[in-house]
């Protein structure tokens, strides 16, 4: 990473740490804001992918994937934004679902990371397992919003720390000259 990219990653991590502290201090008030931000990110990703299809990928073998993925991301983002009006613990369940899913994907990708010969697979596995554990704990304590908020906040703190660690880590790339 360049210095600027490192600074950007650390800045994002600091925002996440701040967000985690806010969440742990004011669990009921912070959820909707998080969801709105997520919604916009997904919608943006979807539109970007659809635009990419029409300007570039439609001329490429197998380019339709960009279109379909764009539609799914867009729909996902819109749905994410539409659920802010629901009770807090449902929103939490949704966030837990994202973390849980993300954790499962990370654990499944450990095998792939290992097969590529990368040494990062242990980190990927640990990160995935922690995501899953956090999701399970949130479900166990779902009715106790304050405790769940603390657990979730700890999870976000952990992700922020991992982001800082990754910012200083070298990632193996296969570059064929």
């Amino acid at each position, binding site marked *: 990473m360049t210095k600027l990219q490192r600074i950007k990653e650390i800045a994002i991590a600091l925002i996440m740490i701040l967000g985690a502290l806010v969440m742990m201090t004011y669990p009921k008030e912070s959820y909707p804001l998080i969801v709105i931000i997520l919604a916009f990110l997904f919608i943006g990703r979807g539109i970007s992918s659809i635009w990419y299809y029409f300007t570039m990928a439609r001329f490429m073998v197998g380019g339709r994937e960009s279109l379909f993925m764009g539609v799914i991301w867009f729909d996902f983002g819109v749905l994410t934004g539409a659920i802010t009006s629901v009770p807090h613990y449902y929103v939490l369940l*949704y966030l837990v679902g994202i973390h849980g899913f993300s954790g499962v994907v990370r654990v499944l990708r450990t095998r792939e990371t290992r097969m590529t010969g990368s040494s990062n697979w242990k980190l990927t596995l640990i990160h995935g397992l922690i995501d899953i554990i956090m999701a399970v704990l949130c479900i166990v304590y779902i009715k106790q919003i304050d405790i769940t908020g603390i657990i979730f906040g700890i999870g976000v703190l952990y992700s922020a720390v991992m982001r800082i660690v990754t910012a200083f880590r070298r990632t193996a790339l296969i570059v064929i000259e």
Partner: protein
Amino acid sequence: MSAGAGMNSETEIKLRRYKNNLAIGGRYYIIFGVWTVVKLLMELTMGDLSFEYLIEETVKSGVDRLFAIIITAVFIGILFAFILIVHLVVGRNVARFVKRHDNRKRFYTYTSIVTIVNCLGFLTYPADIMTGVSSLSLTFIASLLVDISVIFILIDLFYSAVMIEKLIKQKPAVEGV
């Protein structure tokens, strides 16, 4: 250097294109199926048509609450399983059609049925707008996009399959990629 006239004849190029369209279409039909289930789950847990609402409606018909919960859960479980199975069966038939081309009848039958069902379902969009059930919100547009994509995939599956068979008939001894 590019391939000889045989491999890059117009027929061969078209065959590759349609096979690629089928492969991607089949894959994404399954992915859209999974997404449909995920979306329904999210709407049931966090939307207006929630589990709670369905259970209450079932209780109103005079059954015991526990029984209502079981019935609702079983019904939703069957619905989800049905959606997933349909998408998986169609998707896998597409993959088999591309690879082995020995399931012609099944491919066309399944694809026809789901295409008709999806097109009929699509007709509810204008109806909902005209009757005021839905408004032109972002959620509506997102759902519309998803359904248009699915119908596009299905029609393209048909079209690509028909074109592949037509091309194969024109040149029986072709080599494809």
